[in-house]
């Protein structure tokens, strides 16, 4: 019996790494063609790009710096003919998420800027807000319950944060724990983007969703830090694959072995940008395929 289980797990892992897998949702599959979700290799940072078949696009976080935009983010979009982002989403104003935002705003037309609007002293965040204001870009304070359409077939649902914002032990508004959590829904394929949320936010999110958090694709929070990705979250999401965005030999030891082991023990196939390069999810709305670049994506 154990042998059979191991064989089944191995077969699923192989399938997950190399081919099409079915989404877990039961939504209709009117997908409008293929949507690409790219976990871009921006080192010890995060940038997730989404492009639909009909040319709509968004970016969730923008890496560490203008260099990430110049060398990774902009080439990815340009290779797909994208010059306008319907949505530019910021998970939270830490440098490894906001650092490239000013350069993105200099390089692309933006439909709406979506931001949890947390207190900050980050200079790149200040420059981001200045550009959004100078260019008169519509801005949305992201809060749980909001939803947007990316084109006709991809829905974005804001799951986190919610008011009142979480506070840390010192009474300050928490940074990571109020990061923007987004669920992308393309037909039956769901992708959960979690920014850097940690255990306290995960606990609340799991309770709020009350069984509704399942998603076959999970962006592992906080670059695989042991502060996050609790067993309760994994059990609630039940991902088939998980993507960790981390830089090779980063000083924090991300991703922490404890988190990777926890995911693998739950039968999740783990991809890492520090190992696999950019990780592409190609969804047709009923199933998805994973491709890894092993290096820079050239389109």
């Amino acid at each position, binding site marked *: 019996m154990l042998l059979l289980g191991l064989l089944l797990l191995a077969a699923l892992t192989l399938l997950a790494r190399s081919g099409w897998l079915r989404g877990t949702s039961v939504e209709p599959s009117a997908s409008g063609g293929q949507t690409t979700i790219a976990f871009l290799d921006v080192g010890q940072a995060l940038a997730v790009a989404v492009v639909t078949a009909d040319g709509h696009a968004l970016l969730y976080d923008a890496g560490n710096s203008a260099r990430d935009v110049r060398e990774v983010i902009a080439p990815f979009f340009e290779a797909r003919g994208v010059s306008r982002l319907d949505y530019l989403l910021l998970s939270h104003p830490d440098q490894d998420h906001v650092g490239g935002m000013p350069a993105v705003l200099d390089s692309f037309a933006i439909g709406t*800027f979506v*931001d949890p*609007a947390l*207190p*900050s*002293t980050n*200079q790149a*965040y*200040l420059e981001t*807000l*200045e550009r*959004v*204001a100078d260019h008169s870009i519509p*801005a*949305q*304070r992201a*809060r749980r319950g909001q939803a947007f359409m990316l084109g006709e077939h991809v829905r974005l649902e804001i799951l986190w944060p919610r*008011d*009142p*914002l979480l506070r840390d032990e010192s009474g300050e*508004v928490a940074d990571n724990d109020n990061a923007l959590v987004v669920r992308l829904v393309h037909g039956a394929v769901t992708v959960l983007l979690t920014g850097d949320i940690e255990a306290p936010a995960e606990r609340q999110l799991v309770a709020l969703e009350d069984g509704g958090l399942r998603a076959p694709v999970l962006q592992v929070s906080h670059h695989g830090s042991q502060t996050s990705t609790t067993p309760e979250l994994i059990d609630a999401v039940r991902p088939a694959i998980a993507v960790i965005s981390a830089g090779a030999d980063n*000083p924090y030891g991300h991703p922490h072995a404890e988190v990777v082991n926890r995911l693998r023990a739950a039968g999740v196939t783990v991809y890492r940008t520090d190992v696999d390069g950019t990780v592409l999810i190609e969804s047709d709305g009923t199933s998805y395929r994973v491709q890894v670049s092993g290096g820079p994506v050239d389109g």
Partner: protein
Amino acid sequence: MGSEPALIATVDRIESNERGELLAVLVLDDGQQLVVPLAILPTGTRRGSVLRLRWEPDPATERERRERIRSLQQRLFGPEPGTEQG
């Protein structure tokens, strides 16, 4: 002086950018690098100089930056909901 906890940086080399400004590449003992204009370093700093880094809080700049961000957030997103408007 030597007993205080401090970061030690070695000026590994001097580079120049496209505008001809001189930049000092500081390398901390753990290998981290910091590239800063040579002009802001103590007079006489040269390749091979060893510097002790000191940190000084800047509450005025912190306050100003926090306030500029809060002001822009209010302009862009409207009034802060809930308890944030302390």
